[in-house]
């Protein structure tokens, strides 16, 4: 289930999310709009990937380790995540290629690759809710579908974007598309 909050640049999407995180209301906010039940566990297991991206200086293996992700998982991804991974690194199908990728420094990736790498990390981390800010940023339009398909593999996601993501979704998907300007203060009252 995706809750897509969209609006132009500077409309306050990231600020809204940061305020909700600060006040521990983000899951409550998600619950209120989507009717999803988190069983009262509001303060943890939220995987975030906000803009601007953090400036991490180290290699891929170190980066994944900090988020408790074993880098070997890159050899056993499902179809959607593998497509996303292939758009970041070259195809990883052998242990040798995995070792090369693992030892690559994060700052050597391009802006788009780094965005997708942080997105991949957020999707691989075990969490109840994932929050992704501008997932298509610096990426070619040709791979937007792959990015969206990868995000859909998560059961609960809040996606911030410039435009509504409705055009990517199928009829069967039960997603929510909310313009940030339509979010009233009432939504924050528990």
């Amino acid at each position, binding site marked *: 289930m995706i809750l897509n909050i969209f609006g132009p640049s500077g409309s306050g999407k990231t600020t809204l999310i940061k305020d909700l995180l600060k006040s521990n209301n983000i899951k409550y906010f998600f619950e209120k709009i989507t009717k999803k039940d988190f069983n009262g566990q509001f303060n943890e297991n*939220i995987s975030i990937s906000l803009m601007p991206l953090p400036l*991490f*200086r180290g290699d891929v293996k170190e980066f994944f380790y900090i988020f408790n992700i074993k880098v070997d998982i890159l050899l056993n991804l499902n179809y959607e995540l593998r497509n996303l991974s292939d758009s970041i690194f070259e195809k990883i199908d052998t242990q040798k290629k995995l070792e090369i990728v693992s030892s690559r420094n994060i700052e050597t990736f391009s802006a788009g690759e780094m965005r997708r790498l942080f997105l991949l990390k957020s999707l691989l981390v075990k969490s109840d809710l994932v929050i992704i800010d501008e997932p298509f940023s610096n990426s070619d339009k040709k791979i937007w579908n792959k990015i969206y398909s990868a995000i859909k593999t998560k059961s609960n996601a809040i996606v911030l974007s410039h435009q509504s993501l409705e055009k990517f979704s199928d009829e069967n998907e039960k997603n929510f598309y909310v313009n940030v300007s339509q979010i009233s203060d009432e939504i924050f009252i528990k």
Partner: protein
Amino acid sequence: MAIGRAYLPQILYFIQRKFKISLLMFKLFVYLKKNIFLNRIFSIKKSIITYSLASFFDIFIILFISDIFNKLTTGSSSTNIFYNVMVCMAFIAFRTILVFLLRKYAFSRIFYKKIRDEKLLVDNFIKKRINNILNIENDLNLFKEKLVNSSNLSVVNFDIPIVVVFSELIFAIGGIIILLKIFGLRLLLFNLPIFILLLFFSKFVSKKLNILGKNFLNYTEKRINSIDNVSEIALELSALNRTENLLGYFQKVNEPFNKILNEQIITSNMMQIFTESSSFIIILISLICLVTNITETSLANTATSLAVLSRLVPSFTRSVSFITQLQFGLPSVKRLSQMNKI
């Protein structure tokens, strides 16, 4: 012109023979000029001179004070005693103020130079940034480490020890000359085994501190990088409420870093304790010489020697302590000398 060139080697040979400039001397001169440690010592010459002046004054004032001690031990009039005591106190107060002012100036000059060097470091880094654009991680970590750590270490573990050692050695030489005059060469011979033992021990400690110094620089670089990374991704881990791995990542660098600091302090303390113990033995031997009259010293000279020893022994302890501490600062001086390679 062509004929002149043909005779050039002979002319040069003649000049070399004439002025006795050997190739070895020339090489030695070039080596000294390029030596980074000598260059750095030369750059703090004002501090060395000022600090040493303080030691010179110390020696002279001690001589005046010992002269008063001499008068006190030989005189009998109570008026003379009062006058001599007042003069002695005045000398001590004068010495305290003068030495404080001179040393304050010496340290200020060192830190003024540090500020100038750090400004140059930043300036060089900015100017060369575009040329090193592909080597981001190493350059940035090295730059941060130099500014945050090496710059401080060089001052604390090289500049200040050098300044102190120079001046203390001047005092120590003066004091030793006075003691040799009082006790003769016998004192030196009796204390020679202690000096040899101290030399071997300080060599062992110096080697250890040098290795620690190199490791400390490497771990500081890694630690700065680690701190930066923690601050950058703390938000994401906070939302997940899973900090164990990030803490482990930080501890992997922080623990060895602090262990090295701990080792350095223990090793420096070990040297200080050993030097102090050696000083006690030296004083003991000197007292035995006085009491048993092995060196045939008069009462007045006894008082002088005690005055000299009271200043010489801490001076000696400090010198040895600072010389070994220097070893910890050598790697950081070497690193800073590579400023142009940022």
